């Protein structure tokens, strides 16, 4: 699951750095924005079968690779 999430992130951001620094701040650094988030959520749905309730989506809970992995694992 971890690898799938990192693959998705690396593919969306076009940057392998997300694999190396799992505590990297993704929004503040501009690596992720609203539109990249849309793609991430769609990919998580397709590849991991995770339905994120977007009307409860809080950025602060999803702002590093580690947090995203933890979220996905808790939902899977």
């Amino acid at each position, binding site marked *: 699951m971890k690898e799938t999430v990192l693959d998705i992130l690396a593919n969306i951001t*076009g940057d392998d750095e997300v694999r190396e620094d799992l505590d990297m701040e993704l929004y503040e650094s*501009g690596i992720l924005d609203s*539109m990249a988030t*849309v793609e991430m959520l769609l990919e998580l749905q397709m590849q991991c079968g995770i339905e994120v309730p*977007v*009307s409860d989506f*809080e950025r602060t809970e999803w702002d590093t690779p580690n947090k995203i992995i933890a979220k996905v694992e808790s939902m899977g």
Partner: protein
Amino acid sequence: MENKIITRIEHWAKVAPDRVVYDYLGRENTYGELKQYSDALAAKIKSMNLAKDAPVIVYGGQTFEMVATFMGLIKSGHAYIPVDAHSPNERLAIIKKIAEPAVCIAVDELPDLGWDIPVISQKELHEIFTSEITTEPVTIEEAVVGDQNYYILFTSGTTGVPKGVQISYNNLMSFLDWCQGDLGLDFENPIEFVSQPPYSFDISVMYLYSSLLSGGKIDVLPPETTANFKELFKALKSYDIQAWMSTPSFVEICLLSPEFNEETSPELKNIYLCGEELTHKTAARLKERFPNSRIFDIYGPTEATVAVTGLEITDEALNQYDRLPIGWPKPDTPVVIVDEDNNVLPAGEDGELVIMGPSLSKGYINNPEKTAAAFIEIDGKPAYKTGDLAQIDPETGILIYKGRIDFQVKLHGFRIELEDVDHHLDRVSLVEQAITVPRYGADHKVQQLIAYIVPKDQDFASKAELTKAIKAELSEIMMPYMMPNRFVYVESLPLTANGKLDRKTLISEVNSND
């Protein structure tokens, strides 16, 4: 001739003064207040004896006071130049220098640039709006009409110098006539329109004036709300939206929620998408959620007033096309395809799309050079070269969009000249040389901007630190939406045979892995 927009607002203020015109997350304002505020500001502007036709900068966000200020200026015979409150100081300063405004109005608090023109501060504006008029009021004859400038919008130029597109009252009315015609809006009944694009983005013109002319209401989704999905869906639920105008990107965010559909938004009957290519996938998903609404993809440059061609998204259209065409031009607007020497090409051939007709801007303010390059004549009639590559289908006459002929890109609806981003990067003290390239996702759409940089000698501990420092300098001089998403550091950049930076090679390298 009389300004029909002002006449209509006066009408609503008279017959329904308590009707709500503006809803900013529950903060409501009425038509009565719109009249009071705009009359008071117009009288104040009149008392200042400004040069005739001189435009006025209006600095702010998406509040009711912005709209009241626009209307006050139009009533007093002056065009407004909306400048977004998120703009860096440098952009504000350069717009002021180019446009030579008579006044600057601070709806939001204005940065101190050592202004040498009169400034109406946020506090003064509030006092003007809420005080009795003591000077001579304006009459309807003084309002902007005909060929006079109505608004001026600044877009990105290629050398860091933005271009101010002048839109006249006649240009605007040509667009609004089309809204009531082929685009299916009924101005005889009040329209409740969602307001997501900011006033510095010309697609906002559609919701603003459709609501005002129909005696309807504007439901605001400010940027702070749309950036936070939880807040966004809460706000959406609180409104009874009837009409929608946004970029496809914004609709894609809303489609993430399964609750964005016909059942939860039963009043939403008219949906318009503009500002960037609408993918088949997004169009199909939207049609699935709103099978009984009218959905239109509309296309056009700011220079031709919001949009000039439209395609209704029907099941038939979705079945017929894999990549959606941009549709048919509005009835008053001839379009042609030209070659490199501006010779008109027959249908079926690829070339640059050129637009004619009554919604064409008179050109860029105080910029004869750029105006002459883009605004030409075809058979003795004014015409605008869009820079878009297109084809007219020989059988149906429908317009098919094929991309850009230059290095302009659309990122989430924002129009960005890659040369402009390069120019700003070159000015950063840590940058020796730089070039910006787009990374495309599926369906031909730009997903990211990547800056390739040869840095100057520096002793930052990491690339991340260096990037942070470069971004800090850039944010002082460049609009936030132009900020590259990634910074790649290299020792040298590829060159063409002529010794110029080779953007095309980098673009194909960046996009070859997908």
